[in-house]
């Protein structure tokens, strides 16, 4: 019965979206983190989504979501001249992480909406399956 595949597909998508939500949480938590060393500063992270098997997708059009990795943002760091800061480098500069809180809030909303969509999909499909199981019962 092909309807069962929906649970795998939606499940993998929910998994991917929850990783995205986790990464967003990490980004937001570290949004204001500061370091005197530009190589040690927290940089915004983003998960990369992909489909499972491209050949299979071409044939059936059905695929779940897979995480291929997590990238770090290459956006420039915010350099601030704060010689009084305990972490400041020899020039008196500190480096602030390049997390954009606005972007992360948008990401958070997008991820949670997508997650909800998948939950609804599972609910609908489950109802359809239960009704199919009850076929011919009544009357």
């Amino acid at each position: 019965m092909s309807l069962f595949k929906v649970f795998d597909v939606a499940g993998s998508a929910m998994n991917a979206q929850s990783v995205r939500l986790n990464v967003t949480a990490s980004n937001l938590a570290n949004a204001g983190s500061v370091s005197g060393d530009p190589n040690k500063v927290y940089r915004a992270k983003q998960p990369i989504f992909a489909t499972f098997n491209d050949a299979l997708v071409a044939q059936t059009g059905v695929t779940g979501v897979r995480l291929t990795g997590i990238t770090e943002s290459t956006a420039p760091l915010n350099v601030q001249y704060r010689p009084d800061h305990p972490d400041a480098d020899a020039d008196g500069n500190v480096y602030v992480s390049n997390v954009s809180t606005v972007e992360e809030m948008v990401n958070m909303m997008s991820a949670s909406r997508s997650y909800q969509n998948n939950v609804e999909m599972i609910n609908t499909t489950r109802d359809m399956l239960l009704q199919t199981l009850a076929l011919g019962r009544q009357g």
Partner: protein
Amino acid sequence: MKIPAFAVHEQALKMRAERNEVLSSNIANADTPNYKARDLDFASALKSVQGGALPMKTTSALHSQPANFMSTGAELKFRIPMQPTLDGNTVETDVEQAAFAENAVQYRASLTFLNGSISGLRYAIKGGD
């Protein structure tokens, strides 16, 4: 035994189930870069199943079938997006959700028709009891 009363709805149910799968894949991949949304052309697929035009005739079990045909013989087509996106993804969540909801209702309609046929048959078997 093939019961004529079931014929269309049986095929329709199968195809609705497959379409449900394809649409769920679209919604699941709403955020996947370069994913291309697909859909089954339901009307023409059902017509071809009824006409028996698909799949291709073979004389040996080793002959391959065209890759694009699913078990019911329905053909997959790419969805033309209304708005372009930067990441090459052609899923429009609202369009897919509407199609998914519509498909779920149609699936239930097919189930209701089948239930009606079954209770009719049961009525006949029991002699109107």
